[in-house]
């Protein structure tokens, strides 16, 4: 402007200042517009994510309803894939596979470009048999109460029914201590146990242990051995590992968490799980020898299988499926819901002794089951609940039960048994109590132990 010869003080400033203002305001407008667009996109993303998550959950519900209605576990054993489309344009792809005595459901929900995946463990709603406090499936002798034994809930027995008995060192009840109805059946029986899932899972574990490996071509495998004593820590177990094979006794103190891809640790030898061992989610530890779990380890949803025995040391707390012929919970140990203690000899000699022993003060929340096809004596197929031990859930025994502790839920057994020198007592209860009214609502049982096939979500991983 000076070049135009206008003297200082006379040059214009309104136009430059307006142009400057326009520039500044344009920048502000662009920024605010950008911010608004981002906020709107975030809000729409929230909606998309919620719809994708709902689609994933809905997919699991639909797949469980479909499998339950078809009552066809065979399709699940080899892995069942299902696809669902919803009217709101969301979709879900669900994969169902066995996970021990439960069924694992992995669902990927989608809405436009948004995706969410969820994994759940599922189990069965208890059938009407579980409405009873006790099913005493023995047609040959009476159910005999003595001492402080008592039952709150309905009882089903054989024709001999129930009575009270005299036993030295124990008070004799004045009347039969059943607060509920007592029903006699000509041929009382346990819930018919559908063994397909359990047997197929146990056989697959045995195949892994015996080297008959069946796995996908892209499986990530690591083999260690042969040695005497291995120490497995976090450096060995990487996130991409699918199978870890070890020959020899092993101590594991790694921290493992899996929510989508399972990890199988297969050990030909004894296993010791010690602090700071942590297993969360889809982790299966399979051993041919004794499996011992020490105090202070953390186990959540894992499978612990042994050809011989599983032992929880004093004070150990887990939430897991313990599967072995012999299971021992030492004093003060705890298996939290949804734990399952399953004694089975599938694939093992019929003469193999089976036992589940809950020491004084041990606690189980979930399912305690002894399944047997063996012909050995009932005392070789025994669930023992010591005084002070507590089961919240259900006990199912194809052999006998020594019940001196408490059960908050129900008991199904072929017989009761205890030994008071010099006599073996069959059908007697001396200090055990069963309270059916304290079974929590929403309690689910492993697949096969319920006559209904009403599958429901047990836990989200």
């Amino acid at each position, binding site marked *: 402007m000076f070049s*135009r010869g206008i003297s200082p003080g006379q040059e214009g400033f309104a136009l430059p200042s307006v142009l400057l203002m326009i520039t500044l305001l344009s920048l502000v407008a662009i920024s605010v517009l950008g911010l608004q667009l981002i906020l709107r996109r975030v809000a729409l993303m929230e909606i998309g994510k919620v719809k994708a998550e709902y689609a994933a959950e809905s997919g699991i519900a639909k797949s469980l309803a479909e499998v339950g209605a078809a009552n066809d576990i065979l399709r699940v054993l080899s892995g069942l894939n299902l696809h669902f489309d919803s009217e709101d344009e969301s979709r879900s792809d669900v994969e169902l596979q066995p996970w021990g005595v439960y069924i694992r459901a992995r669902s990927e929900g989608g809405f436009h470009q948004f995706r969410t995946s969820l994994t759940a463990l599922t189990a069965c709603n208890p059938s009407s048999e579980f409405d009873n406090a006790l099913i005493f499936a023995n047609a040959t002798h009476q159910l005999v109460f003595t001492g402080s034994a008592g039952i709150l809930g309905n009882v089903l027995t054989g024709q001999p029914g129930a009575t009270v008995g005299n036993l030295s060192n124990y008070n004799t009840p004045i009347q039969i201590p059943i607060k509920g109805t007592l029903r006699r059946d000509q041929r009382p029986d346990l819930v018919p146990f559908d063994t397909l899932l359990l047997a197929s899972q146990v056989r697959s574990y045995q195949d892994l242990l015996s080297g008959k490996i069946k796995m996908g071509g892209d499986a990530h495998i690591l083999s260690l051995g042969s040695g005497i004593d291995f120490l497995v820590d976090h450096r060995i177990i990487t996130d991409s590992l699918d199978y870890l094979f070890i020959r020899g006794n092993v101590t594991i103190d790694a921290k493992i968490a899996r929510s989508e891809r399972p990890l199988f640790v297969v050990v030909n030898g004894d296993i010791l799980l010690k602090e700071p061992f942590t297993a969360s989610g889809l982790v299966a530890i399979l051993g041919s020898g004794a499996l011992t779990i020490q105090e202070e380890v953390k186990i959540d949803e894992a499978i612990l299988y042994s050809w011989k025995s599983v032992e929880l040391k004093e004070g150990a707390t887990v939430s897991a499926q313990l599967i072995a012929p012999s299971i021992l919970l030492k004093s003060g140990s705890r298996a939290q819901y949804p734990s399952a203690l399953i004694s089975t000899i599938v694939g093992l000699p019929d003469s193999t002794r089976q036992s589940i022993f809950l020491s004084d003060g041990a606690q189980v929340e979930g399912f305690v089951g002894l399944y047997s096809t063996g012909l050995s004596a009932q005392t070789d197929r025994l669930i023992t609940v010591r005084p002070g031990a507590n089961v919240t859930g259900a006990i199912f025994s194809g052999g006998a039960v020594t019940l001196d502790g408490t059960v908050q839920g129900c008991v199904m057994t072929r017989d009761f048994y205890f030994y008071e020198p010099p006599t073996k007592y069959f059908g007697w209860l001396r200090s055990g109590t069963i309270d059916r009214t304290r079974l929590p609502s929403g309690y689910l049982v492993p697949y096969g132990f319920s006559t209904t096939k009403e599958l429901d979500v047990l836990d989200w991983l």
Partner: protein
Amino acid sequence: MTILIHIKRDDGYTLLETVVAMALFVSVLLPLGVAVGNLMLDRTSDEFSLRLRLAEAEMSRTMVERDFTWASIKTSEGYLVNRQVERIGFLRNVRISVSKSGSGEKSILVISKTFLDYE
């Protein structure tokens, strides 16, 4: 040419400039200012989030209380939350729609979820 030189030398140049500036101010700056103001006051994204929260809360309530009845709830924020439930076998398909109260019930957000119900 003489006039141009005269104009160039005239102090009135700033008047022309002011006129142009005023024209720009009226035609560009004011609308731009109004637009920026509107954008800053825009609460559309907040409303999206609010509708989603209302729908999610109703879905959670339905699931926890197992209340599978049809219902229409007017919220304090001026929205109408509708719950529709359809039963297919053991499945309950719950559809929650949110509409502006008094807008002829035209849904502005719909979420749906399927539950298992063995009862």
